[in-house]
């Protein structure tokens, strides 16, 4: 069976109205957590909202995710973590992107995240934090807003 990352896109239209390509996001499961229905639902919602979405599948190393982020030239990496290891995995993900020479790619983190960990995640380098329980449409809009704000801050090194 194929383990190639899957890309899902609804086409070239970017509801943000800019001339650039649609926003591309790599969604990833790192660590041992096997619950991925949530991240798949989010993938579909982002696709419906005009994003190009690549999903890695389960149990990826942060190094493998960073490699895919580079080859797929994505605008963001989104981690879905339901197993409590969000802070340490975020730190590792950010470091792996730096090592891969793409430290400017923002890392977004969602899942079962206690409010008290939001600041720790920011400190670990997360550009956006999405604790469970937020309606899907709001999550999608916050992701878009985060990425557009980052894009406005300056050009990436790539």
């Amino acid at each position: 069976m194929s383990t190639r990352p899957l890309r899902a896109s609804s086409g070239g239209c970017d509801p943000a109205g800019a001339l650039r390509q649609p926003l591309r996001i790599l969604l990833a499961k790192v660590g041992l957590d096997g619950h991925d229905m949530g991240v798949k639902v989010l993938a579909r919602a982002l696709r419906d909202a005009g994003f190009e979405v690549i999903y890695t599948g389960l149990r990826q190393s942060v190094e493998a995710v960073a490699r895919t982020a580079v080859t797929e030239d994505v605008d963001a990496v989104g981690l879905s973590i339901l197993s409590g290891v969000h802070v340490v995995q975020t730190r590792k993900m950010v470091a792996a992107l730096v090592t891969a020479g793409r430290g400017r790619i923002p890392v977004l983190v969602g899942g079962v995240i206690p409010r008290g960990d939001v600041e720790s995640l920011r400190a670990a380098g997360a550009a956006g934090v999405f604790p469970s329980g937020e309606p899907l449409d709001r999550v999608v809009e916050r992701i878009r807003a985060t990425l557009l704000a980052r894009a406005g801050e300056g050009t990436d090194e790539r």
Partner: protein
Amino acid sequence: MSDQAPPKLSFESASGIPLRPSYGPDDVSELDPARDLGEPGQYPFTRGLYPTMYRERLWTMRQYAGFGGPEDTNARFRFLLGQGQTGLSLAFDLPTQLGYDSDDPEVEDEVGRLGVSVDTVEDIEEIFAGIPLDRVSTSFTINATAAPILAMLLVCAERRGVAWDRVRGTIQNDILKEYIARGTHIFPPGPAVRLAGDTVAFCCEQAPKVYPISISGGHMSEAGASPVQELAYTLADAIAYVEALVARGVEVDRFAPRLSFLFCTHQDFFEEIAKYRAARRLWASIMRERFGARLPESLHFRVFAGGGGSDLARREPLNNIVRTTMKLLAGVLGGVQSATVTPYDEAFALPTEGSQRIALRTQQIIAYETGVPTVADPLGGSYFIEALTRDVERAAQAIIRQVDEGGGMVAAIERGDPQRAILDRAHRTQARIASGEKPIVGVNCFADEGQADREPELLHGASPEVVARQRERLQTVRRRRDGARVEAALGALRRAAEGTENLFPLVLEAVRAEATIGEITRALREVFGEYKAAPGL
């Protein structure tokens, strides 16, 4: 006064079955009570497995627990038993579920989180210190590594002088649903189903009080499956296991009485009751008509009703106590054999003793204060419940037929059919929550913004000391054991995995030699390989 319009009521069931304003004789005109219902305790068991149901024996109250190291879990178990709990339910951390030792650098951050860490038989001995294995039954949520964990339980019994035919418990050992929903698979489906079957066949011979498989739909409904999908795909998985066991020459009445099931109860009160009733009728007929089972116990759909957490809310978390009470009530009215109530804080944290106590008290209040258990199947004969039971059954039958026509459940899983169907429904549900079409009180309606951030801040993992202690114990075992005996046992296991003999006795021997869960899994992985799921969207 709120300026928001209240949400609209829905006139269909959670599975999408249209509901009428009221039901009467015309809605059940084709119902033949003798054929379709029977008395409680009689085929087709729609009304319950036993004639007097809870008068004879209440459902087993089993709260899910397990965290940190074996000592922490032992202390929580003793607390729960001291509070009047009647069975145990053990949660394992992810490294244990996936066959990694606690000192494996690949999994360093996950040890003792979400469940207890187990490396060797010594840890199982510690978890059950002071707990009699022949009197207290434990449910083990373990799948890909069910064989080594059960072997550890049996070796622990052996060391204590408890005969295997007196050991009680349930191991989940349902690998098929891991590919559909839960994601803790290791090997490809073929060898994984063989290993599960080896364990079932061994228990039928040598550990007859162990329920060696608990075929689970609860993880599918937690992932978004409707009650009808949960019912249908679980029975389709069960059919695949029965076929595999029959194919290896085990007689159906020999193992069928040892099969059990796990569902989760969700929020649609009446459809959940109908789901449990329909499940019993459907399973009894599948076992009798399709597999020719003769013993009444072979026809029994014995079910543990999990509490689930996906329909509990982080916001205003005390509301979850009301939700979980309704869920338990639906399960009891549906005639389940054992149940858990999810602690109100589990949607966002590891439950505390306090929240576990309320969950257990919820069970005790329904059992002893409400009068609900007094009469078997109290809703039987209700026009609505009987019509809904029939509709749920028919909808599930249609899905099972599709699976059969597509070559059975293993083929369906390899194609990703159930995965996709559940994802479709999960996606729809999220859209309905976002639009407000599916109300969640305190979240997308009647939301009190002032309450939003007032959730308790709770711990989510094991302390570094717990992890250090666990690794130290593992290293002590590695130092003192007979290395040659371990190597011989693992070598024999590898060779047997290449053939067709029952692997369970070889796993037992490796556990006796104090091989670790990581070593046993690695030996099997070398032969079976590892399954990589396609990341289908």
